[in-house]
């Protein structure tokens, strides 16, 4: 083979250097402002504008680069202003922020409840699919107040780095079932399929006057937990319900958990801690840990005049407290009675919630339209059937099947009568 002159080799490798550095898309990490949360709100004066809020993380906080001196820089910077969308806002922000705005590590989109309930909300949401840097698996959450107020009030005492804070609190909330999994990609999918409802995370920094509406400690949502202490004012609890790309209502923690248990699509939480009425003593409640191990079984029957759904929910349950001090270890009958009573309680709660979705929302957030899709051969047939129209009319029956697992570390409790003797 012909020898390649050494000069050509050098030139060739120099050329490689320019190409391999990423051409014109080369970026210096030091020169970027990393937006971790984008907030969107209606502009009061101009309906073609949105109020964009940025939470910019300081990458040096919490890393080794900070050095031993402690570093004086704050963990984040926030800025809110009006722009025509959150893509052009990137350059506008640079009138204040010194570094180039990047969405590379963007993990959360926050929208105000007011904006989410707007019919034009979806137009701005679809900007996400255009922007090359934004991923589809980022979280969507709805705030009761204006995002600019939210980011100012949100002052976590620990985990001050915004990327860490949101990741931790959302993961924890999803593990305990207090907030739904809320990916933007799923929002698009459900909106486009035009059959089910989408659940978004609901949060606020404002305390509501409406503390714990009734006896049930789980019937509340963000802002309604009354607490004291020196900590953050932000609460994430419950869900925002979206129908056809528009927010229509909010769900409490309990309803969010029921949605989890009935859902075919949501990733199940680790375990739900729920207090249920004690069948042996009306005045007490039994704390239980429940989780769904297997998939929910859904039978859709379209053959009959009135289409029906029958769902079987397999639940594993552990008993955590027993204030009634009923002897469950010794008597099998007691355990059976407990199981039956809990199954009935859950059935009733499921059915009440389903009725609410049928009457108020006209669709459901459980992904059940997927089960109905299996009954059709072709998409035109399914579209003809029109899930959103049929669902409110359907007969829905739920069969909860509880599998009692364990009764705590010490199963036997002293007899109340003997103690007080």
């Amino acid at each position: 083979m012909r020898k390649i002159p050494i000069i050509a080799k050098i030139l060739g490798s120099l050329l490689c250097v320019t190409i391999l550095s990423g051409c014109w898309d080369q970026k210096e990490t030091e020169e970027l402002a990393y937006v971790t949360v984008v907030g969107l709100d209606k502009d009061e004066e101009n309906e073609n504008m949105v109020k964009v809020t940025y939470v910019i993380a300081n990458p040096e906080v919490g890393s080794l680069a900070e050095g031993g001196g402690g570093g004086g820089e704050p963990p984040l910077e926030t800025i809110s202003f009006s722009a025509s969308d959150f893509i052009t806002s990137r350059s506008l922000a640079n009138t204040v922020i010194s570094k180039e705005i990047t969405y590379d590590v963007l993990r959360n989109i926050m929208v105000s409840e007011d904006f989410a309930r707007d019919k034009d909300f979806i137009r701005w949401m679809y900007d996400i699919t255009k922007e090359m840097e934004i991923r589809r698996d980022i979280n969507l959450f709805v705030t009761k107040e204006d995002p600019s107020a939210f980011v100012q009030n949100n002052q976590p005492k620990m985990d001050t780095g915004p990327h860490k804070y949101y990741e931790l609190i959302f993961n924890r909330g999803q593990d305990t079932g207090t907030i739904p999994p809320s990916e933007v990609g799923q929002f698009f999918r459900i909106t486009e399929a035009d059959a089910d409802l989408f659940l978004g995370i609901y949060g606020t920094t404002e305390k509501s006057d409406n503390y714990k509406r009734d006896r049930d400690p789980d019937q509340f949502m963000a802002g309604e937990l009354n607490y004291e202490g020196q900590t953050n004012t932000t609460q994430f609890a419950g869900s925002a319900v979206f129908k056809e790309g528009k927010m229509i209502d909010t769900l409490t923690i309990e309803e969010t958990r029921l949605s989890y248990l009935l859902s075919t699509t949501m990733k199940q939480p680790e375990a739900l801690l729920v207090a249920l009425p004690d069948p042996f003593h009306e005045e007490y409640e039994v704390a239980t840990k429940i989780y769904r191990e297997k998939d929910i079984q859904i039978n859709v029957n379209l053959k009959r005049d009135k289409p029906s759904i029958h769902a079987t929910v397999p639940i594993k349950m552990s008993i955590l407290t027993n204030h009634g001090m009923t002897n469950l270890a010794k008597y099998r009958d007691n355990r059976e009675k407990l199981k039956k009573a809990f199954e009935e309680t859950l059935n009733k709660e499921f059915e009440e919630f389903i009725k609410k979705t049928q009457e108020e929302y006209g669709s459901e957030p459980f992904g059940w339209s997927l089960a109905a899709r299996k009954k059709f051969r072709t998409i035109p047939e399914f579209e003809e059937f029109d899930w959103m129209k049929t669902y409110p009319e359907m007969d829905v029956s739920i069969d909860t099947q509880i599998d009692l697992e364990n009764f705590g570390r010490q199963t036997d409790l002293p007899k109340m009568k003997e103690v007080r003797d």
Partner: protein
Amino acid sequence: MGEPKDKIGLKEYTAIALFLIGIKATDDVPAMLFDSLKNAGWMGPIISGLIAILPLFLLLDIAKKYQSKNSIDIFYHLLGKYVGFFVLFLLWVAGFLYIVLDTATYSDIVATMYFPRTPAFVLYAILVGVSAYGAKRGLEHIGSVSWAVFPYLQATLLFAIILTIRHGNSGFLFPIFGPGEWEVIKESTMSVSIYIDFLYLFLLFPYVKSVKDFKKGTWIAFFIALFNLAISMVSFVMIFDYNTAMSLNYPYHEAIRSITIGFLTNLETFFFPFWLIATDIKFAIYFYINIFLFGKLFKIEHFEYIIPAFATLILFLGLIPESPTFSVFHMRHFFGQILSPVFFFLPILLWVLANVKGEMRK
């Protein structure tokens, strides 16, 4: 280098064939199929594959019959001097346009999904430049590089698909027949040109060690490519559902952006380099076959010298279409529908002629 001096073996040939077809799962071919087949898009490669078995079988039979002959001479022999030239010339034109449109698509993928700020011209030039260099090295080199990197690329593709399926929901595959059984069969038939690359690979059969290897390699590559296409399209439906899948331009690249492993989020940076290597190899092969055919047609012995001229021409032609995401997509779709009958009927015609002539000689 001119004509290949050494012949390539079974492994190299299979890898080459797989690069040509298997990688189609990652460009806009799935988008094309989803467009008309909705969530039954994954049946497209399977049904058109079943249809493609016949022309493939006939091509392989012809190759077996004329083992000693050159593939180009077979065309002249069967179709006569003028018709043969004409058919080969049309094949060359089709192949050339195919490269232009395909390179435009691939550089558009890089431009829209990964490097939005770099001028399209630069990305395109690098793609064409690297591929032209690969083609210039000759078939043996392309073959050994293909085989050397193929296992890694296949492994990463499968890895991406498994992750995608894990994130997905099998409920999205229903209603199983999408727009309707007839629609599925009709549209799949129209897109049988996915496998047209085998017609071009047929031209290379004299440079594979033996016809037996050629046959074996073709079938292995065919079934693996079919599997790759079908399974990746299943995974796209499972992660996006059909409505979203239909509106995506490049589903593979959206999918690798949506998947995560635990705390590792931006996985596309891992999959992208592998995909780039596959792309460069694919176009090196395309270039080589096309220029080889051109050289044979016009009796140019050292056809590698026209590679730079070709590369430049392709580059400028490919840059012409405005907003390539749409225009090239439609051209490719249209072009694919024209090529489908060609791919189906040309081998039948050749085979019938071969048999008629064979009988006459007896």
